[in-house]
């Protein structure tokens, strides 16, 4: 990419962009991303437009366009419908992509030991920060520019206020800046790209959760845009939020219709201040955290806490429960090290993580149980379940993918590989070392699952504890829930190990594994999303088709077995899909809840088979994954050379 000399000198930006453009990955990712985004845009607009046309037809508007013989004319004014459906995609793209693009910008220099050379130049810290920021904004904006023809087309259809369009562009720009500056801040704080990557997504998830809770408290550009479109909704709603915000704000926001630009600008001020704050923090951290040692931040935080407790103990004369002393492995050295010496492995640290995760989960669960007695929706817990599951997915994937690559980057792998431990042993022991972590991560998920059971019992959906049959049903659910959570997390761990182990750099293995895991989750979500298209016709289909269809879809979901246990819960409902159980039995001549149980069992079994297959595959490919000679592999090599000999 050649950068025209618009501004006299931005050497760092120039270097960054040249570096980015020199990588083949940049182009592949960018064109793939653009294709996905465009396809998505087309798909959405196709759906929206056809629905819109149908509507118009029903209203008799179609006749007008049809009479002229110009079908396009029928789309006049469709922009009004299309615009609010398309723009969120752009915001979503920014939220998803921006952190990953930015998080490595400073940490990579730390990892390569090049940050010091940057400091001794005459660039001021603030210049460095700005040029880093710009260097990641430029690709993002060019990426977004690809979709601007689409926006222009939508605009040309009419129905979109020009001022709203301008305000939207303004807001997207600030959304980019906001997420970029957050990512940059993480990049300045952390010593590794992996750390910055995880942290920036965790921060994004926090923002996302806050928006779900009360959008008014976090006026990100996206929230403002929704406000502008009058499309804001959340668990607490805009109304209650605006009460908190005060009448003045409410009346100000109400003017958005007349003066969108002025209102937008004023509302963006908090976001701007946040960006400024992040940039200043980055500048502040840039020097201070430039040469911090690479040892795990988490471990050090824990050690600090330990020291605190130690002092507390000393003063209070208490007893120390678990002493920090040397311990030696007995049989499985690799597992021993993962368990005893890693922050994510030691029992005492894991217990703390568990407390940190479990406490809020329990709190929210209890609140739900207490407040949703009368509403029969257990879906209030779905965001929490999703959050617990996404967190588990992220942590397991990151940990699983760095099992081998962290040793590779620290150059400890060769020593391990030249011992007589077989590749199979090494991989098995590594994953076994993750087991406790998986337990910890499974706990919040299971908490939500079991809360759902309690709520089912409590909300009196025909389930009473007196009924032994129902109790058995609940027990089945609990067992299956534990088993499926375990299967799913293990599946993720092995998947991450498979995807991440070959990579030379830790950051790359994490990117690859997280992309694959989230990609699979996304694809499976998309597969399930297809249900929505046929939502209109689902009334035509009977409960049997829907149930079987659900089971089939769950087969392809990475969290499918988790989902299956959830749908087992539904089978406890007395009136699935509004049919009474008796009528269903009359309709199909089968025991409907039992059918569901079998389908769920089938899905869980399928995921278990998937897990075993994946595990076997990883173990079989241990030579390739670890990059050394292994006996088991040699046999197949011999067979291959045998055949190649025949070929010649």
């Amino acid at each position: 990419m050649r950068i025209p000399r618009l501004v006299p000198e931005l050497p760092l930006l120039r270097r960054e962009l040249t570096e980015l453009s020199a990588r083949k990955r940049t182009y592949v990712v960018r064109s793939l991303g653009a294709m996905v985004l465009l396809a998505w845009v087309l798909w959405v607009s196709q759906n929206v437009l056809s629905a819109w046309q149908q509507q118009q037809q029903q209203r008799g508007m179609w006749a007008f366009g049809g009479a002229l013989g110009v079908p396009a004319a029928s789309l006049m004014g469709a922009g009004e419908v299309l615009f609010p459906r398309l723009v969120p995609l752009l915001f979503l793209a920014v939220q998803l992509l921006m952190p990953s693009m930015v998080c490595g910008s400073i940490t990579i220099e730390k990892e390569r030991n090049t940050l010091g050379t940057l400091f001794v130049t005459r660039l001021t810290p603030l210049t460095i920060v700005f040029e880093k920021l710009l260097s990641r904004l430029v690709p993002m904006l060019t990426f977004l520019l690809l979709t601007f023809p689409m926006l222009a087309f939508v605009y040309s259809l009419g129905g979109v206020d020009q001022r709203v369009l301008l305000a939207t562009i303004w807001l997207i720009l600030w959304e980019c800046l906001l997420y970029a500056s957050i990512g940059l801040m993480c990049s300045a704080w952390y010593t590794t790209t992996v750390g910055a990557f995880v942290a920036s997504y965790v921060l994004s998830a926090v923002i996302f959760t806050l928006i779900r809770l009360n959008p008014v408290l976090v006026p990100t550009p996206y929230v403002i845009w929704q406000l502008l479109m009058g499309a804001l909704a959340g668990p607490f709603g805009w109304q209650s939020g605006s009460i908190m915000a005060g009448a003045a704000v409410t009346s100000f926001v109400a003017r958005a219709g007349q003066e969108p630009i002025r209102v937008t600008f004023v509302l963006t001020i908090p976001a701007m201040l946040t960006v400024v704050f992040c940039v200043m923090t980055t500048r502040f951290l840039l020097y201070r955290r430039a040469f911090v040692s690479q040892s795990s931040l988490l471990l050090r935080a824990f050690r600090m806490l330990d020291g605190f407790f130690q002092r507390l103990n000393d003063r209070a004369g208490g007893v120390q429960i678990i002493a920090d002393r040397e311990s030696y492995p007995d049989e499985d050295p690799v597992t021993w090290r993962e368990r005893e010496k890693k922050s994510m492995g030691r029992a005492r640290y894991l217990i703390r993580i568990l407390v940190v995760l479990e406490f809020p989960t329990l709190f929210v669960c209890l609140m739900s149980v207490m407040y949703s007695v009368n509403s029969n929706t257990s879906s209030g817990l779905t965001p929490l379940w999703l959050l617990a599951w996404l967190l588990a997915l992220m942590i397991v994937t990151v940990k699983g993918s760095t099992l081998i690559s962290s040793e590779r980057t620290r150059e400890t792998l060769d020593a391990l590989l030249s011992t007589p431990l077989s590749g199979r042993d090494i991989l098995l022991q590594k994953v076994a070392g993750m087991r406790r972590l998986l337990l910890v991560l499974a706990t919040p998920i299971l908490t939500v699952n079991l809360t759902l059971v309690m709520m089912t019992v409590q909300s009196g959906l025909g389930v009473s504890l007196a009924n032994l049959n129902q109790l058995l049903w609940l027990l089945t659910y609990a067992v299956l829930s534990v088993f499926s959570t375990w299967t799913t997390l293990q599946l993720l761990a092995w998947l991450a190990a498979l995807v991440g182990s070959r990579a030379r750099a830790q950051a790359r293995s994490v990117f690859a594994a997280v992309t694959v895991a989230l990609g699979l989750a996304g694809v499976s979500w998309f597969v399930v999303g297809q249900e929505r298209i046929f939502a209109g016709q689902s009334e035509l289909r009977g409960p049997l088709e829907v149930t079987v269809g659900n089971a089939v879809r769950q087969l392809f979901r990475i969290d499918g077995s988790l989902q299956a246990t959830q749908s087992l819960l539904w089978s406890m409902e007395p009136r699935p899909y509004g049919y009474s159980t008796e009528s269903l039995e009359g309709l199909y001549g089968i025991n409907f809840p039992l059918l569901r149980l079998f389908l769920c069992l089938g899905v869980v079994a399928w995921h278990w088979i998937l897990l075993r297959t994946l595990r076997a595959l990883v173990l079989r490919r241990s030579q390739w994954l670890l990059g050394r000679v292994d006996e088991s592999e040699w046999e197949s090599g011999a067979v291959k050379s045998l055949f190649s000999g025949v070929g010649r």
Partner: protein
Amino acid sequence: MQGEQAADAGVQLSGVRPAAISLRNLRVTYGRFEAVKGISLDIPEGEVFGFIGPNGAGKSSTFRVLATLQPKFQGQAYVCGLDVLRQPQKVRDVMGFVPDFFGVYEDLTSLEYLHFFAAAYRIPSAKRKGTIDDVLTLTDMTHKAHSPVDGLSRGMKQRLALARVLLHDPKVLLLDEPSSGLDPRARIEMRELLKALREMGKTILISSHILSELAQLCTRIGIIELGRMVAEGSLNEIYRQLQLMRVVHIRADNAGPELLEKVRAIAGVESVEQQVDRWALRLREEDLSIADLHAGLVAAGARLTMLQPEAMDMETAFMKLTEGKTA
């Protein structure tokens, strides 16, 4: 142990004793780039073989093949008669490998580190403590046993790595540039340690890009360059192979054109260069030993006040071998 074998290790005995390390036309390619281009090598048991070459010559690639860390290569590689490709597991039992760049687990102490590898080498847990004490003593690391390894100096880390590969008492040691990056003191200590291992009868393959380091330690030397072995043998053999002339400086109080003619006429003297206060004689050592030269000079009537053979110059040999071809 095998101490007495080491005494005569300098003698070529590959026919008599089984080769501890044996390479047959080894080729290693990375993509389209050929890093090792057909190396053949036999190292008898108890020998210390020095592998010398500039950076990028292919030393580490060869080491990785022998350490079973390189699944793709052509040719054959045997350690103690075991095929690296077919019996990697057995090879790992008889071999200890210290890579050129290596990290140690930062989260462990030296003792935990050694226990980790003792378990990895499947040393019975009853024997572990004794074995670890032994290797700690041998490598003089006992006083650092309880220190975290990330606080150790580079020299200490190197010694810890050596302690690690000695745990299972391997017959063959593969040491890839063990003294690179060490300060002079640590370097000398490392050399002493390696000498002790040689006395114990271990077969050692050691690499370096510094010649003088290996000259004192090795029984044989191979010079590798751009993936090819350009010279191999004992130090003297290498000189002969390179046709390097021995330079002898003499001073005589009856030096003059007459004597100069006579000296030039001595068989085996290649040339005589007149310097300010001395003459530098270049001679073919295989034709004329220093003692014969002395006798010849006396016979020619030279009244010698000084006769000084120049020290063997390995750097010159190296420069000559790798003339402008370093990768």
